[in-house]
């Protein structure tokens, strides 16, 4: 199975990097998070409600929406901060990318093997940093990046409403193969964040897909 892949390329000032990535990833995660499941038996369950919060950007003319989950937001923020710090460091070329990858696990066929992680949707944000001379340019950049992110958010909603593949709702025993149940208030589909700084990398998703491909071929 090929994972759907979306790539967003943005040119931003260093201090806009965190917010630019956060606005895209939180919009995606908001769509890809459900309320916590409460199973009454193996196959039937009830779902709690997801709350949402408006976030005003400090360095971009934009307001985006994220899930009202501190734990989820803290985790995402930490990952984005790490990426941003590396990107803005002196060693960096000022170009880097961060991916949000949704995957599902398949139970390992052998006890000694880790369960396979099969990505089904990958969102990549590639950033190029620029430095600005004065406040006038900064103001223009605020608006420009805001407009670009608006386009991206509209595109995300378009993708989300396509009738594309989403993992099926799991039974109680398989819920951890589809959803990340570690958060107390929301239940996003299993996801992970990866970043690389020096230009486009091969990406974990491709690697894991290849690994899975080889393994499945051998098992056949």
């Amino acid at each position, binding site marked *: 199975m090929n994972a759907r892949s979306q790539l967003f390329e943005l040119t931003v000032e260093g201090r806009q990097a965190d917010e630019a990535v956060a606005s895209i990833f939180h919009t995606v995660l908001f769509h890809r998070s459900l309320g916590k499941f409460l199973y009454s038996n193996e196959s039937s369950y009830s779902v709690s409600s997801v709350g*949402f919060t*408006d976030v005003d950007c400090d360095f971009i003319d*934009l*307001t*985006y929406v994220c899930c*009202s989950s501190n734990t989820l937001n803290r985790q995402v923020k930490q990952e984005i901060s790490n990426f941003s710090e590396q990107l803005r460091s002196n060693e960096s070329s000022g170009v880097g990318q961060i991916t949000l990858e949704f995957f599902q696990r398949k139970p390992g066929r052998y006890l000694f093997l880790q369960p396979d992680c099969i990505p089904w949707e990958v969102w990549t944000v590639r950033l190029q940093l620029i430095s600005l001379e004065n406040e006038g340019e900064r103001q223009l950049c605020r608006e420009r990046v805001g407009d670009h992110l608006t386009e991206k958010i509209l595109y995300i909603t*378009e993708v989300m409403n396509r009738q594309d593949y989403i993992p099926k709702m799991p039974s109680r025993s398989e819920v951890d193969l589809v959803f990340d149940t570690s958060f107390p208030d929301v239940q996003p589909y299993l996801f992970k964040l990866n970043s690389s700084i020096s230009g486009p990398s091969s990406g974990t998703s491709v690697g894991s897909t290849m690994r899975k491909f080889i393994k499945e071929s051998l098992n056949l």
Partner: protein
Amino acid sequence: MKRDLKMRLSKTDKKELDKFTKFLALKATEVIVQSRIGEKVTTPCKSHSSGPDWFNLNISDLPEVVIEAKKVLNSDLLLSKKFPFCIEISLRTAEGDNMVLETWCAQLLNEQCDPNNANGQTIYNRMGILLKSLVSVTRVTPAYKLSRRQGPDSYVICYRMYMDEPLHHCLGEGFKQIRVGQICTAIGTLQLSCAYRTKMTISPTQTSRDNSILLKSDHFNTNLSPKIRRYSQSDDRPSSLSETMKIGAFADRKMKHFEEPQLVDMPFCTFFADKLSLHESEPQSLATSPDNDRLNGDNMEQLTNDDVNEDDDTQNVEKNGNVSTQPDVSMVSTGDDFIMVDLKTPFAKPPGEKFELTKFFREWQQAPSLETFKDVPPVDATDLQKQLETFESDLNEFDSIVQTLCQNSPNNN
């Protein structure tokens, strides 16, 4: 179409779809309206114990919006021709100008349908995603930024709902359309879209058009809306002016009683007397002279109310610059087919209403005189009187001078 529906959907499926659609429209309305309140929205994630929410999304309900939405929405949405359902967001300036900013529209496109997609749970889940998309999209259209900046002194954001084709013509030239999302169902594609204005210039012709369907205005920040502000200003009691009136530092604190101007004792009384007599004797000499019979006779009451005569007097003083006892100024032609034109003082309130300016003027007339000027002897009225009398007696002499002047210059007509 109805026959097709029956073929494709069982009764329960159709009922379920109708119910989902109705709640989708209700929740969508809440999302859109609340995003235009001008404040950041935060709803917490809820646990199971607090009961389920529609589409597993915590969207708080504003009771007023629910009531208004339910008036417009009803059951059997999909079967009735009442879809599409539109929510119009508009801006109203403190001056009362209206401008439609965007129109959100939920509609069913009959041409695309997926007969296999009758699974209620799938549609329900997709509706949840569609609502999330709506939450995200409402934050990025131009109206969002405008709504965050609204205020009683500049403009407020209003909304209204209607069941009709979206009125895109009121969005001005170059409006943009975006699709929030769509859900393929067995009877067609349910689509949520938005059309928004891109040119934000208010033109005077863009006043409120068809408000007959449903207009909810001043919903946002009702306590601060400019309308209420304005009312509170005009609610000031008429007596406020006299209460707040400042008396000069050295002025006599006793309020001087206001007296109607007496023509007889005034220095120029003969001048006024002549003028008045001229009117009386030659009413037809002026094409638009006031018809004194109408003004001074019984008809006067028809033109003005008895109880506001005083107010009108002062209005006339202000307007004409001299003292006149005419209660209102009318122009009446003397012909048989005369047309009477009532001249109303510009910006004046119609007779019968107390006018603040009148009050002020009256206060001004009653202002106590400064103590400094108490000892200054008044202008000697008798001297003036004598002078005038002398001039009058020499009237013939003046006339003859004028005549000789006219004769000396034959060109002068």
